[in-house]
């Protein structure tokens, strides 16, 4: 079946602009995660959605970052007033949710470059 998809695959923007990154999880997966992969910081957790529960936003680096998940499926990560340090690959993952050991399946990522 289809895996996790993300769009766009690449995004180049100018400092100060807002960007939106999209994630389509695997059908039937109730849990959705966003991670960031950058040269300086490695792979870091950003935010986690599980069903209708309040999201775990503990990994968001600043209030310029926000995310929504509409209808329990598609998610959008928004970065306002982008800075050069926001340049990274943004990875989305989904999982079945509710299991003791829940395997996360990753999308191909969106490479964001802030000029």
């Amino acid at each position, binding site marked *: 079946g289809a895996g996790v998809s993300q769009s766009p695959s690449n995004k180049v923007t100018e400092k100060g602009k807002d960007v939106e990154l999209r994630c389509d999880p695997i059908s039937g997966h109730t849990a959705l995660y966003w991670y960031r992969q950058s040269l300086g910081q490695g792979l870091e*957790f950003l935010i986690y959605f599980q069903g209708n529960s309040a999201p775990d936003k503990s990994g968001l680096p600043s209030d310029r970052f926000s995310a929504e998940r509409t209808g329990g499926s598609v998610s959008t990560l928004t970065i306002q007033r982008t800075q050069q340090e926001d340049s990274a690959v943004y*990875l989305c*993952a989904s999982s079945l949710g509710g299991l003791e050991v829940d*395997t996360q399946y*990753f*999308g*191909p990522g969106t490479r964001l470059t802030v000029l």
Partner: protein
Amino acid sequence: AQSVTQLDSHVSVSEGTPVLLRCNYSSSYSPSLFWYVQHPNKGLQLLLKYTSAATLVKGINGFEAEFKKSETSFHLTKPSAHMSDAAEYFCVVSRQYGNKLVFGAGTILRVKS
């Protein structure tokens, strides 16, 4: 809190020789442990996971890892390296009933012909 230390940033082996990628973890709770692989310009793929059942875990492509609580280690091994194994490997920890993955810094595996 959980953390992971991958002891080698780069490992180079010859094709057909054994692979050993080392990982130590720290966790205040019973951990779940994973190894993911990332080939160049591709997404992360799960190799194997530790579920607190068997301590020796077998994964895809001939990889396996052994959970050693006394040593807080979860090293990844493969008896014979293939050229296609060249990639970056991540050791990952989460809480047993958790969700957030904590990634190690990664080990780049180079396979020489």
